[in-house]
């Protein structure tokens, strides 16, 4: 048992680099026998070839296949046209998930940028900055499932007259209010879930924005002060415009995270009480209902929603590169 494991480990540790080096050596040997002009044309493709092959097998092929499946029925035995997409955009529960993803998108991206920026700017001015930033960043280290369980306990609800076990309701009742069923009450439950996401991601936004903030030349800000600008004016007229591209990066990352939101919803409400999101819907259709058609259609819709965000990211990246 141990012996076979050891052999596997040796094969992996030695074999993988050896195969990589072997491939490169082989390619170079082959390319070396070609005329000079072909060497230049072929070499990049051959060097990048394995990576492209992996990408094709593990990303492009499943993507295309998912696209095909989205036009087939539940067990993929016959084509049904756009029925699955019709379902996604007309079914009442499916529409709720679209609405919720919109909530996630706007609120998660918005709150992470605003709080991240706020913390970055405020903590930039205190001596104990590393400690506070560490604390804010800490939730990033927890898994989403663990965080959801923690917050589920915080949101715990007990009827009035019974000892409150949730942090929030404990506070509310101590102040003389009525306990709120945070995860069940449709007026607040979506926001309660998004708050968990904000709690988890704010640290990430803060760290990136703080790094950008420290990249702004001090002379610039001092010059503004000398010219009589107020701190608020400096923030909105100098700091934020100069951090524009970084803010865009954080915001687009959060948009992608919002579209992918799954763990928090799955653990805390399972998508009940009007809190379902698309990723959870995809999971249910696929693994619970064995409906490959609708599951694939949801996946394609998610993909299409993410594409523009990625395009924006790439364009910004290109502009930045061009400026350098």
């Amino acid at each position, binding site marked *: 048992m141990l012996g076979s494991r050891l052999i596997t480990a040796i094969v992996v540790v030695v074999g993988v680099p050896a195969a990589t080096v072997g491939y490169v050596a082989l390619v170079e040997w082959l390319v070396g026998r070609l005329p000079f002009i072909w060497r230049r044309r072929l070499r990049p493709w051959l060097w990048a070839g394995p990576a492209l092959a992996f990408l094709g097998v593990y990303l492009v092929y499943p993507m295309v296949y998912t696209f095909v499946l989205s036009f087939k029925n539940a067990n993929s035995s016959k084509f049904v046209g756009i029925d699955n997409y019709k379902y996604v955009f007309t079914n009442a529960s499916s529409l709720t998930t679209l609405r919720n993803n919109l909530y996630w998108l706007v609120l998660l991206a918005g709150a992470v940028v605003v709080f991240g920026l706020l913390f970055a700017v405020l903590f930039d001015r205190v001596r104990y900055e590393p400690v506070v930033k560490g604390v804010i960043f800490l939730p990033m280290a927890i898994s989403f499932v663990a965080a959801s369980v923690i917050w589920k306990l915080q949101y715990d609800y007990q009827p009035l007259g019974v000892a409150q076990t949730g942090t929030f309701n404990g506070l509310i009742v101590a102040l003389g209010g009525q306990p709120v069923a945070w*995860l069940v009450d449709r007026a607040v439950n979506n926001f309660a879930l998004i708050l968990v996401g904000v709690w988890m991601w704010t640290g990430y936004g803060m760290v990136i924005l703080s790094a950008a903030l420290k990249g702004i030349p001090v002379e610039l800000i001092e010059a503004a002060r000398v010219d009589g600008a107020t701190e608020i004016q400096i923030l909105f007229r100098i700091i934020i415009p100069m951090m524009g591209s970084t803010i865009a990066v954080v915001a687009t990352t959060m948009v992608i995270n919002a579209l992918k939101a799954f763990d928090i919803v799955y653990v805390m409400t399972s998508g009940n009480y009007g809190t379902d999101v698309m990723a959870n819907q995809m999971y249910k259709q696929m693994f619970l209902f064995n409906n490959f058609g609708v599951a694939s259609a949801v996946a394609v819709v998610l993909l299409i929603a993410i594409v523009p965000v990625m395009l924006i990211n790439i364009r910004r990246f290109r502009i930045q590169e061009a400026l350098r």
Partner: protein
Amino acid sequence: MNKLRVFSLVLTLVVFVTACGATTTPTLTTAPAATNTAAPAATDTTAPAATDTTAPAATNTTVPAATNTTAPTATSAPSAPDFSSLGFTTVLASDMITASTAYTITAGPYTVVVPDNAFSVDVQFDVLSADPTGFQSAVPSGEQPVLAFAFMVMDAQTNEFIGQFGAPVMFTAQSPAIVADSKYYNLASDGTLTENATGLQVSAGMLTHPIAGDGVAWLITSPQGSTVGGLRTPEQAALAAANGQKIGGSVTVLAEWTGGEQASFLAMIAPFETATGIKIEYTGTRDLPAVLTTRVQGGNPPDLSVMPTPGAMRVFAANGDLVDLSTILNMSDINNWYTSGWLDLGTVDSKLVGVFVKTAINGLMWYDPKVFDANNYQIPALWSDMVDLSKTIADSGTTPWCVALESGAATGWPGTNWLEDIVLRQAGATVYNGWWQGTVKWTSPEIKTAWQTWGEIVATPGMVFGGPNAMLTTNFGNVGNGLFTSPPHCDMAHQAIFITSFFEGGTPGIQPVTDFDFFGFPPFEANQPLATVTSGDMMSMFNQTPQSEALIRYLATPEAQAIWAQRGGGYQSANSAVPISLYPDELTQRASQRLTQAQVTVFDASDNMPNAMQSAFYTAVLDYIQNPSSLDSILQNLDSVQQTAYGQ
């Protein structure tokens, strides 16, 4: 190496000395001085050898020191007695126990509680069993051997046999073959028997005895032919299932039982393995539907398998995968043991393809008898009485009901159980079956009425503690917590039999019958036949071999099912020949009576629906609790799911 040996020698000495001390512990003081005489006798010989010989010499002076002669010299390690020549070839458990650590071994019908001072070294503790019928000639006439077992305890470091434990372990055997007159014998390696009543406690179905080692095996006997409920011993039942022949071979079994359930199933089949020589290759997986489907489609089905749901069983049967059991089982026995309701559930196209091995009753109403007595509340005979009682309780200032629907991804299922209980009793079994089969619409008057009937309790303000929010956020396991507060938050709760363990966990110290009890889900009209909704596991056969035939015959017997019944854990048998008295407590006994006496037995409807339908049902329960006035649109939505969910 040498140092190690000296060390283990010292350890053996220590163990020996402590063992001598152990003879004065309370558990052993009732001994008829037999064990006490052991010590001087033993100390006469050299120490390591003594550990080997103490017990036989002590408990049986008639044994001609058989083990003495084989005892090694003082310099070598004590060797293990040869149990295999006596027939102890089946290893029921092989557990590693850390030094000075308390540990509990469960092995077949046996439980061995090892106290922390039993071993001062890490040990490998094996529990061996033998076919007890092989010892028939050795036991006094009028008795029959029912269980035979031995311990093989080895020092994990040195691999030396440990014949004497630092403190006695508490041994328990559970079997319907044990009766109040059962006897316990030491079985020396030369085959001689000596009765050992030291610290022995026997009751119907259960025997406990402290064991401090001994280097002997043990045999439990019962008076000839006297078992609980007149059952055969499990070994006899197993042998009969194999047509009286020790045929050997093996059989593969697949089921969803893991953990405690797996241990109970293994206990159930242990006598079968010893009696027939057939080895059972058991696989337990929580992902039964996927594993079974994959294996069947891959042409590699298990010989026997538990069916994930009756629905899945019907699919396999329709594909011709399942063997008709009516040609294999003795149908006159089966008809005596199982009411027609149970057999109907396992019948497809008039072929019996599944037989229930394990069941559980749904739909029991739990209450605190002290509260009912104090307020002079009567157990309601009808649903309308129960609603009246609820109003009476509400008027007295207590909310009558606790309802708890939260259960992670399956939140809502306790509500589906309520509705199933109502549909069955209000609309009857035909509508009930059409409902889960997808032929009765959700918007049909019967189903809609059932929801509205449930609404008399859950959609009526003041009827449920905490209202909708508490219902939706309280975990199903905590449904009973409010029954036992002072003053109680509620006086009644609805849940299946398994909830008792949650009651005891949530409110430590409460006792069944005195602190909590149940009444059956009330019918809607007087003189309705007793109906129950159940859930449970059916065993079906994919491959017909002599071994799989023997096993399914055995599993259907009351002797086999009694083993699991005794072990508890919410297990109930559908076999009416399993003696009710064997269930571990009175509540389970009464619940089991309802189960076997029911004239109408149906299976949990939501578990029988396609996944998409079941999931929509769960969500519908939650939506209804939040907004009862939207019932019509909820049911219409369920109808639209019904149209697509069954087509797949």
